[in-house]
């Protein structure tokens, strides 16, 4: 068992889809929170296996998509400093800011580097003591322990030329924001498995109870998603609204305690702006106490132009599950991965990018490719 390819078996997928068909008696709208799950759904053509009654809408779980445009502008400004090395995960580079992306800045000569881990950025800081090395610390709860450790190790090793431009967001407050909105159509959630690997799932119990909505912690492979949908549909059909764990091979109820401890040491919870959604109270992390000296926001004062969003991009509606990517007039015409108007067209977790790359249009049949070994 490799814990990967086994969960892409087509026959098993069809069997699960058959079980969902047997269970469902009416139309249900289910949201998958995480953009990684969106990509599995679209790439594997899972919607074509599902009965018509199941309407999947794609949630805001794409950190690249929800990072505010002001922070992209700020990242570009830091990257353009002659003394800076600006490090980021690859996904952030093409995200459009008001005028430029990090990729544009790099093309113009800025030292922008793609790193695999925040610890790689910390290593660069140690190797280049004459430079200011800043890391774009974006992400959900999944990535927070890694970024917390980078700040903690920088402090431990007294590395002073290192900083983090933090844009950390949290899933449960965003779910609450969606559920409390008057136009919410979501009846059940597939919760993001890897976020729960870190935080556990006890935090979802009050949400499931208050909004009477089933929440199923779900993994990322095609069989995981179908199994998660089956569990959600079973709850909906039986009138239950519980928190269940489909992804028990990776998620424990209490989450990862050592990781939570480090997060609490380094970060504090603050209100956060979400691109496309606006400000959500207590929905993100910021560096706390002695770690604030690593805050790039404080270290590099910014006096740029006020941020400007593209007036044509409807990413806010897409991130709330109110519209699907192909319903946007700019989709695939004025907005493409090479020339994006909004972040969801760029990110490997963005719903628009998934629809664009895997050719999903309304009523168009996508051949399932469940056993494909090549994924990202």
């Amino acid at each position: 068992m490799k814990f990967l390819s086994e969960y892409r078996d087509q026959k098993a997928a069809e069997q699960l889809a058959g079980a969902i068909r047997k269970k469902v008696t009416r139309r249900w709208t289910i949201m998958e929170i995480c953009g990684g799950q969106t990509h599995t759904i679209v790439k594997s053509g899972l919607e074509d296996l599902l009965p018509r009654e199941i309407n999947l809408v794609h949630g805001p779980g794409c950190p690249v998509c929800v990072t505010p445009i002001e922070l992209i502008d700020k990242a570009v400004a830091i990257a353009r400093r002659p003394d800076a090395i600006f490090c980021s995960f690859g996904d952030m580079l093409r995200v459009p800011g008001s005028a430029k992306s990090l990729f544009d800045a790099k093309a113009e000569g800025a030292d922008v580097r793609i790193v695999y881990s925040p610890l790689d950025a910390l290593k660069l800081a140690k190797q280049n003591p004459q430079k200011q090395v800043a890391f774009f610390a974006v992400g959900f709860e999944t990535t927070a322990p890694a970024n917390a450790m980078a700040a903690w190790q920088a402090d431990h090793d007294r590395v002073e030329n290192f900083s983090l431009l933090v844009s950390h967001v949290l899933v449960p407050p965003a779910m609450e924001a969606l559920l409390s909105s008057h136009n919410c159509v979501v009846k059940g959630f597939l919760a993001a498995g890897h976020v729960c690997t870190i935080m556990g799932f006890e935090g979802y119990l009050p949400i499931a109870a208050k909004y009477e909505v089933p929440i199923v912690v779900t993994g990322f492979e095609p069989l995981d998603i179908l199994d998660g949908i089956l569990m959600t549909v079973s709850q909906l059909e039986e009138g239950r609204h519980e928190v269940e764990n489909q992804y028990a091979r990776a998620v424990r109820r209490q989450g990862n305690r050592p990781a939570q401890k480090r997060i609490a040491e380094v970060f504090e919870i603050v209100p956060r702006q979400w691109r496309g959604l606006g400000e959500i109270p207590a929905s993100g992390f910021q560096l706390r106490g002695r770690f604030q000296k690593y805050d790039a926001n404080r270290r590099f004062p910014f006096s740029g132009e006020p941020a400007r969003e593209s007036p044509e991009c409807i990413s806010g509606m897409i991130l709330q599950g109110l519209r699907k990517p192909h319903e946007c007039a700019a989709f695939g015409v004025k907005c493409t991965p090479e020339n994006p108007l909004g972040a969801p067209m760029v990110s490997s977790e963005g719903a628009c990018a998934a629809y664009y790359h895997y050719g999903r249009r309304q009523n168009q049949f996508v051949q399932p490719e469940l056993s494909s070994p090549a994924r990202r």
Partner: protein
Amino acid sequence: MCLAVPGRVVEITDTGDIAFRVGKVDFGGIRKEVNLAYTPEAEVGKYVLVHVGFAISVIDEEEAQRVFKILEEMGAVEEELGEIPQ
């Protein structure tokens, strides 16, 4: 960005301080150094889930079989009832 990949721990280097505990993890032939600070229970031979250079969870191999057991049971019931799986 929340992508995490399972790999098998092939080596652990104890550095004294748990925050710097690292190991080599094999991803189907490719080996990478991974920080193991958050998985003190990780052992050589176990599978861990790795995200941006950090092991975030040790895979529970028994739980990993769950969906296949359900499918097996579903298959057995269908056979019993003489239904052809769709």
